[in-house]
């Protein structure tokens, strides 16, 4: 129990040997899962099937897929807020809509802006696509992770 747990950093995901080692530790500690997350929002989870086998039995482990925060919707991709702030759907300079329904956008294109205390934060498309729906209103105070619009594959 007092074994030093030197957990892998997030620069590289743990390799299969490390996963086996971690799952053994989890089993020994009677824990069913371990999840690491860092400030960049990366998640890594190891779940151990708590075998009701007696001690000494072979430990089973499953490495689950890392949870994906912005899971793609059935028909497309949802663009979510990377921070919180008041939502601007129009360019503050040209006053034109940044990504109206039906427009086509490329990965990395600015589709909305979050304004907070005079600072603006761009919201960028995570994929190529056509804007299918705008889910939030101009000027609305939106929170981290809130859906802003959906993209259909082009």
């Amino acid at each position, binding site marked *: 129990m007092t074994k030093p747990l030197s957990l892998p950093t997030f620069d590289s995901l743990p390799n299969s040997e490390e996963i086996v080692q971690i799952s053994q530790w989890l089993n020994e500690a009677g824990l069913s899962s371990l999840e690491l*997350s860092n400030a960049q*929002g990366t998640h890594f989870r190891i779940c151990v099937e708590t075998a009701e086998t007696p001690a000494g039995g072979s430990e089973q482990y499953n490495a689950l897929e890392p949870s994906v925060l912005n899971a793609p919707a059935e028909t497309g991709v949802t663009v979510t807020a990377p921070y919180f702030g008041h939502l601007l759907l129009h360019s503050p300079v040209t006053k034109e809509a940044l990504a109206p329904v039906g427009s086509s956008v490329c990965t990395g294109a600015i589709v909305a802006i979050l304004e*907070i205390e005079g600072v603006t934060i761009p919201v960028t498309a995570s994929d190529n696509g056509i804007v299918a729906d705008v889910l939030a209103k101009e000027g609305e105070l939106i*929170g981290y*992770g809130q859906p802003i619009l959906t993209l259909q594959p082009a």
Partner: protein
Amino acid sequence: MSTPQRFGRVLIANRGEIALRIQRACRQLGLETVAVYSEADAQSRHVLEADIALCIGPASAARSYLDAASIILAAKVTGATAIHPGYGFLSENADFAEAVEKAGITFIGPTPESIRLMGDKITAKQTMQASGVPCVPGSDGPLPEDENAILDLANAVGFPVIVKASGGGGGRGMRVVWSADELGKAVALTRKEAQQAFGNPTLYLERFMQKPRHIEIQVLCDTHGTALWLGARDCSLQRRHQKVLEEAPPPGIPPELIAEIGARCAQACRNIGYRGAGTFEFLYEDGIFAFIEMNTRLQVEHPITEETTGIDIVCAQIEIAQGKPLTMTQDAIQTLGHAIECRINAENPFTFAPSPGQISQWDLPGGAGIRIDTHIVAGSVVQPYYDSLIAKVIARGATRQEAMQRLKVALSEMQVETIATNIPLHQALLCDPDFLKGGVDIHHLEHWLEKRKNPDDKAAVSANI
């Protein structure tokens, strides 16, 4: 009534039961609330009930509840003009308190200077000594070279003493000395080790407290020169320095002794211009109080003081931050009856492994003298990202006996399903003869746990047969 309020909307920079506790106090004072939360807490009760709720980041506390810059921006963007930090997270972060005030927002808590002063154990102890708060008796400085002078010092402090290296720490460079005839040798040996290990032979000595209790004094100070103490709590039942069960008043300690220490704490607060709620923590053994540290925030166990004094500490914190004077006087504050708090954690009661997950059944106890502080409702999910406290069950009675009886019934009524809780641990503790007697020391629970048999542990059970 006519004095203008400094703030009308309070941002609660916390989560869980304490966020809901603070929200209730704000509502009772006619203030609006802003809940800032992480994605994991979107369905939390205080978030759903808040006047304004804003998700500020992912589950990671570093990007949500510990993200000072985001929390201050969230206050700005939601029009909150005060921030209550709760306990844990940023509550004792002097830089955060300073940044809040620089942003023109009221920090519901002490000044950054007070937080900083008490955050450093050496300056805290020096400040308390200067104010007449008793600290662990000791040499109050480096030991002299002369053996007889050291012996005089040790006799004045009283055996057993602990000889410590000034440069030591983490349990290294210290030696317990039980009697005068061991002293010379122990000092020489420790000095040699200190020189070798830390390159600094400087030693000091303190009285060694073998079986201390953890006793703490709650204070409340306004910005008009009033500092009050609200009685004492006994928090000796701890596991790995985490409090498990607390009670007020501490059983078996003469009220006059507590009153004397309380008055000294209040005076220390006046001396340093302390503002808001705070707690002085002491070790207590053989009638001696020794200051350990001051917590410059609201504490988890504040309800037992509320129950025995009738004072709403969270409302008082907010009113003090509004600039209002405390309306009660020290003479009017009494400790009435007895209160005990059990911290209910989502954890295995034997292995203490955390037990996160969805709660399918959540039946709470009730009746005279029972108070439950919790953010959980049936269907709530206990998140694995934060601490495992899911409720505090507080029982009050005219006597300690009555409070314990009420607590026992309450715990037996409480039904929590599909996650494990430490309720069985509390139930067993409430039957422990030493606890029933009152006055156990801070090592008691750890020793008690070592002796306890785990019914799930088949080896232990079969060995028993």
